[in-house]
């Protein structure tokens, strides 16, 4: 039978606040264990939580960006379970009155609806001594630095139809959170985490199939692979006439499979109830209006602007907008007067390739908007060839410099002197009589060969327009 996957994603995003959700401890990643803790976030007896207003502001901003309804009143609840990384024996979360409801994300003209988004505190981290994981370790240590860091859990509707779409959804969501500056979206540091709910159903059916919840997805690639695996696993089960079991499964990166973690019967009963230590929050509408005025241009709007005003393709616009830093730099360069097309080509092509090779982040680059503008003008004025421009760009990525300086230092100034170039063209033609003959007999492709040879001879500095003009002229005249 033909099946279609039904996928919903739950994202846990660390909100970028200076201090924790319910106390004044700093939230920075990577500090020595248990140096960013206080009696409140280690759950000492008698202490009380106090809501961090900055967390609420971040949550509202996300709600505005995703076009959610921002609740007029919202409250916190306790989610009760025992684990050593949870110092109070409960997590302060939101159960039935989340801060945001509804909303959507648009990816490639498809709307993925958002079910809800709610605030909660993160747990600490266990460090297992003497082994990579819990099994085989002699004892475990707890680091509460992360405990109490504010999280926003963003839950999608089961509107996602493929592993690829899941990746696009996550990319776009992370991008939005970065644009509005509420989350740094770092998967390695755990500031952007994702669980996937996957089920399949016969194509055309309306009833949802039994779902599995997949955890331990540490990269977008893992999300895509795990969902793909899960679809195949469930298809095999249904095809053999068996039933999918509702359970939580863990993705294992090394064997590329999901493995059962706990079944529905073993599922926790979290015994949610309203957090009596906190009063319900009444969200001031004028505050929401103020926050909405602070909202920057969102990725979707920016993409559309690139397509409409700068005539970029959807794919090019998508790639540039995907990185806010890159997109901001692009915008500034274009504003200075740089060619949008050239800049877009340079960023998407050589720049991204450079980042991949060097394993660097865009923010690490030395490149400035002025550099891009100068380079664009140099190409336009014929001061440097477009081939040489790429060489200049690579230099600009690596170190702080000026376009003119690099052109001079590397001797990349374009030769546009017709007299000099005529000699170069003639020399190449003279040296390759048999190819000239081929050209005469109608093999016009040989022209590319001459062009390449001339460029080689001039170290890429020759002005291509003049070369073409000279080739037109001299190929006809050339003697055999």
């Amino acid at each position: 039978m033909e099946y279609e996957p039904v996928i919903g994603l739950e994202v846990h995003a660390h909100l970028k606040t200076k201090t924790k959700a319910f106390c004044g401890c700093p939230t920075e990643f990577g500090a020595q264990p248990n140096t960013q803790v206080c009696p409140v976030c280690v759950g000492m007896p008698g202490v009380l939580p106090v809501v961090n207003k900055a967390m609420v502001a971040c949550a509202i901003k996300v709600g505005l960006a995703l076009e959610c309804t921002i609740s007029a009143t919202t409250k916190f609840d306790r989610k009760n379970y025992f684990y050593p990384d949870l110092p109070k024996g409960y997590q302060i979360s939101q159960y039935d009155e989340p801060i945001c409801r509804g909303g959507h994300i648009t990816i490639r003209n498809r709307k993925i609806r958002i079910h809800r988004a709610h605030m909660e505190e993160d747990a600490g981290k266990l460090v297992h001594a003497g082994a990579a994981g819990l099994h085989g370790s002699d004892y475990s240590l707890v680091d509460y630095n992360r405990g109490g860091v504010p999280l926003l859990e963003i839950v999608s509707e089961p509107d996602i139809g493929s592993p690829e779409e899941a990746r696009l959804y996550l990319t776009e969501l992370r991008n939005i959170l970065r644009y509005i500056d509420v989350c740094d979206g770092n998967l390695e540091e755990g500031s952007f985490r994702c669980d996937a709910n996957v089920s399949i159903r016969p194509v055309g059916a309306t009833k949802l199939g039994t779902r599995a919840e997949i955890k331990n997805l540490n990269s977008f690639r893992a999300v895509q692979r795990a969902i793909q695996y899960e679809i195949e696993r469930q298809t095999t089960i249904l095809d053999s006439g068996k039933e999918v079991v509702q359970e939580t499964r863990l993705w294992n990166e090394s064997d590329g499979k999901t493995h059962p973690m706990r079944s529905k019967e073993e599922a926790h009963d979290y015994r949610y109830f309203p957090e009596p230590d906190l009063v319900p929050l009444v969200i001031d509408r004028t505050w929401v209006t103020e926050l909405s005025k602070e909202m920057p241009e969102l990725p979707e709007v920016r993409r559309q602007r690139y397509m409409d005003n700068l005539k970029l393709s959807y794919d090019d616009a998508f790639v540039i907008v995907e990185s806010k830093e890159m997109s901001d730099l692009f915008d500034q360069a274009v504003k200075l007067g740089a060619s949008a097309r050239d800049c877009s080509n340079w960023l998407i092509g050589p720049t991204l390739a450079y980042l991949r090779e060097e394993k660097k982040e865009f923010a690490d680059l030395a490149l400035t908007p002025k550099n891009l503008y100068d380079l664009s003008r140099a190409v336009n004025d014929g001061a440097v060839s477009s081939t040489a421009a790429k060489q200049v760009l690579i230099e600009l990525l690596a170190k702080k410099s000026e376009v003119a300086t690099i052109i001079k230092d590397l001797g990349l100034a374009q030769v546009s002197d017709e007299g000099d170039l005529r000699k170069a063209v003639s020399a190449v033609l003279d040296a390759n009589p048999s190819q000239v003959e081929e050209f005469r007999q109608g093999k016009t492709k040989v022209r590319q060969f001459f062009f390449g040879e001339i460029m080689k001879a001039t170290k890429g500095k020759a002005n291509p327009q003049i070369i073409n003009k000279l080739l037109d002229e001299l190929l006809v005249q050339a003697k055999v």
Partner: protein
Amino acid sequence: MTLLGKSISEIHKLLTSKETSATELAQAHLSYIEKSDHLTHAFLCLTKDLALKQATEIDKLISAKKELPPLAGIPLAVKDVLCVESYPATCGSKILEGFKPIYNATSVNLLFDAGAICVGKTNCDEFAMGSSNENSAYAKVTNPWNHNYVPGGSSGGSAASVAAGFATIALGTDTGGSVRQPASLCGVVGMKPTYGLVSRFGLIALASSLDHVGPFTRTVEDTIRTLAVMAKPDTHDSTSVPQKMRTANCDMVALLNDLPKITNLKNVKIGVIEELSGEGNEKSVQKALDLAIETLKTLGAKIDKVSLPKVKYALPVYYILNPAEASSNLARYDGVKYGARDKSAQDLLSMYLSTRQSFIGSEPKRRIMLGTYVLSSGYYDAYYKKAQRVRRLLTEEFNDIFKSYDLVICPTSPTTAFKFGDRTDDPLKMYMADVASIPADLAGLPAISIPCGFDENNMPIGLQFMAAPLADRKVLEAAYAFEKATDYTKFSPMLQKYESAKT
């Protein structure tokens, strides 16, 4: 001259006139406690170093002729569920043995800043769960009036320490009556202010939405003096009443200035709660109530019987909500971070199980089980949610009554102190001890218990006044006028015995 059994203003005079020093005063109290507390077990630990250090500070102020803060030199005892920095806070439980907080409770801090001198941490029922102090994991507090009787609970050590004269002020906590009921049984004044008037920060939670910090003193005036210092907004407690909501009706400083003017209760309308008077009370208690009503009438109050039909649901509602919150609040005592741990456990689950099995007593265990049950999926709506709804209805019923009445009254406890072991086999019978005090906790009302007589065994009886939320002043004014018109404010025989043995 004796330095024991003095009121706040008496001590203030003694210090400013240099008849004694804060250090002498502290030492007199500490040595009385050291010599006599084997009879009462009111203290779990003495904070001698702290007391002498604080007393020295006060003496420095005196010799420098500086103005003394309002509670300078006042001996203070603190219930062991409230945090005093660097001293044990066991909550009467073995599971917190060895735990020393690195912070003061806000209420404690305010009293310290006002010059109070902390003599020790008082014994209580484990995690404030109990009405007789028999649930303390360490020792049973006895009633200073007769050591064969319970002092009430859960703040039994605090009530006993004021009744015995060990301290002028003792802090207690009241979740279902744990200040007022032992105050009644020990013949002292015990007040539970409006919910949120005194910060809960540093109060080790039993049931957060019901927990209150309240003082024990010998006189109403001393309660007002204590609250004038302690009832302040606190940014560390989100449920603390903000300053802008603290109107004249809960302004304790103003009340203190107005005290000389309070000589009668003319135009004060008082309702006697029908459901909590009559047959349900012991004869002696009912007789004392009837007599109290006559006294109030003589003072000019207008008295009616009022009916609060929802009050009969208060106990069942309380024993759903209290265990629900307690089951969650006590989850942090898991052996991972502080307090006791079963070190022989070989893995995480057995560490959790054996630690909690070994070090948590039977009443907390009972409430953890009840609470876990009523919050479980499938039972939440039928128990927890319904109880919350009834709590709201009860609150509305009180609000309606307070549209027509300034105060409602009833006995604080339907019985006087009972003997050890009388109720330990029957938790329900024990729970009944709080039937009259629980409603004020559920509705967050200000409520006070003051002495109103003695039974045939010379055990004290308490009268309870309640008012609308944030009308704490009304409760205190009535109690003050009643106290002035009567003669029930007495020390237990312990103090006299000690003093006479000394001379």
